[in-house]
């Protein structure tokens, strides 16, 4: 994934650069609106992360001039929580927005969602190591043993399996499994994960469902102890 970050706040830009590079993305960074506009217009990126408040040329102006020539997906970062900023950003052609302070996991999930659009590969049988998830039969089994899951547990497992190896935040999980579109402070997701883990991991030797403290959950087969 080729990403352009246009952000004047150095620390933010730098950790985004490092984080996204480590996630296997190729990242360009611009620290002001003028450079950002140049890079955005003259180079091709899969997605652009654009701060709304920029020196030189602000994010909205940049977005407008970019939209005049190309349709690269743009996710806007706004510090102000005003509805005007959000509405304005979306009206000017932003594809998504995040309000500061946002979490990195959240940003990465949104970036993937934006670039994944239109290229959904529909597998019906997902495999995570010894775990098999049959989406047609709505059935899961591990090491030959059938696992009984409730509908929501299955939906949760399906999400984790489809996005295996990817850290999913609690917010993303609540959004995609329960259709709850807000930052919830409940521990519903924790409890649901705990229950799922009891079914898919507890009876077996190697855990598949891992907690990344402070970030979220990931379903993957880890070869050695980590």
């Amino acid at each position: 994934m080729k990403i352009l970050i246009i952000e004047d706040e150095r620390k933010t830009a730098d950790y985004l650069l490092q984080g996204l590079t480590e996630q296997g993305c190729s990242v360009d960074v611009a620290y002001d609106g003028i450079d950002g506009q140049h890079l955005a217009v003259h180079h091709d990126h899969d997605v652009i992360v654009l701060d709304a408040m920029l020196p030189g040329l602000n994010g909205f102006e940049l977005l407008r001039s970019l939209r005049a020539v190309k349709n690269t997906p743009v996710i806007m970062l706004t510090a102000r929580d005003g509805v005007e900023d959000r509405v304005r950003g979306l009206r000017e052609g932003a594809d998504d927005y995040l309000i500061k302070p946002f979490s990195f996991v959240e940003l990465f999930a949104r970036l993937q969602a934006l670039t994944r659009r239109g290229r959904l590969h529909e597998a019906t049988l997902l495999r995570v190591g010894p775990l098999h998830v049959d989406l047609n039969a709505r059935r899961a089994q591990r090491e030959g043993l059938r696992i009984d899951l409730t509908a929501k547990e299955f939906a949760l497992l399906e999400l984790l399996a489809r996005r295996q190896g990817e850290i999913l935040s609690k917010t993303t999980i609540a959004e995609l499994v329960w259709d709850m579109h807000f930052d919830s402070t409940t521990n519903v997701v924790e409890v649901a994960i705990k229950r799922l883990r009891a079914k898919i991991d507890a009876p077996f030797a190697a855990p598949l469902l891992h907690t990344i403290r402070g970030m979220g959950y990931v379903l993957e087969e880890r070869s050695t102890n980590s």
Partner: protein
Amino acid sequence: MQRRSIALRLAGMFSAVALAGFALIGLAVHELLARNLAHHQQELVDDRIQDLSYMLEHGRSADLVDRVHDKIAALTGDGRTQYWLWSEDPAWRYGVDPRNIAEVTRSASGMLRMPVGAGQKQLAVAGIDIAATPAHPPLRLVAGVDTAPINQILRRFEIRLLPVILCGALLVAALSYRVASVGLRPVAQLSADARRIGPNTRDQRLRMPALPLELAEFGSSFNSALDRLDAAYTQLESFNADVAHELRTPLANLIGQTQVTLARERGAVELREVLQSNLEELERLRTIVSDMLFLARAERGERAARCVATSLSHEVGKTVEFFDVLLDDAGLGVDIEGDATAIVETSLFHRAVTNLLQNAIQHAPRGARIEAHIEGTPEGALVSVSNPSDPVAPEQLLRLFDRFYRVDASRPNSNANHGLGLAIVKAIASMHGGRVFAHSQDGIMTVGFTLGGNRGAGEA
């Protein structure tokens, strides 16, 4: 802009009224005087006619003509009176152009005023016909009296009346300015009272007993406006303190833990542990800040956008489903009663119901039933969540929706909600043109909110 003085305006208006009144009285007096003087003039003319007509009617002597002329000469000696006699007999004629004046006075009844003679003196004239007697033929006797003296009286009166009226009006102006200034003293006191009110003397109010009737309503509404501002100010103050307090704990943890960790060489595993723990604290900070910003948006009057007509029972059902695992763990059940369609932003609605359910789950005893009640109202809809609970005092119910308020102050600073949950419900209600309510009765605690119909949908 030049500010207008009430006292000056009042004085101006009073003196205008006085001027008009005095002028009317003056006019009336003037009219009365003019009438009296006219009457007097008529009498004068009549007297003059009488003087001669008696002689003409009763005189029988042969030289009556001469005697009449002598009498006229005597009577006109003052120069103010003039006589005319008209007869077919030229011997009886007297005065300048008597025929003409006899005709004129005959054609009009009563007294006439007309200019006469070379000096064009203004005269009041009247005439009578005197029947023929043996001593003289039929006569027309006309007498005229100079109007100048009477006109002079009127003129003098007018000349004096004008300054009297003007002086009177000025006097009234001065007096009423003084009176108005005295009358407006309560206003000065009001502003003195108001001047004393400041950020550090917020308990000061306008002194109501001192205020006159006309200012009492202003005073009381001003005072209640101050009460409201004071309450908001106090809330804001304590709120700032609360925010600082809420942020202090995670910040202290972050700083302390980081310092302790950096004081020694640590292995990668230990460092990761610390970073993860820090991340949790930071997430907590982020949630507080995001929630605060959300509340601030609602407080600025932002309304829910992206509203759609929705079956509330369906959305409450979805939210309850979200809580399934928690309800199951706590051995609780939720009954959804009623339904209504309202125009809401579903994500906000979910959030409000989530917070209500979360609140109910925290307070309901194990194994209890929670009831989610929905009903349509004329304005929109009402959603409430009830759970069995210990009775809550009314003053606590009032504060339930305050930010960072916790019914149970001793409850550990749990990660869930930060005491903002119900404040957020309130914000969401107000974003939909609704309000929140809470009551505690017969061991059942009910917390809910209303939705204000389509009012939230107007804005896009």
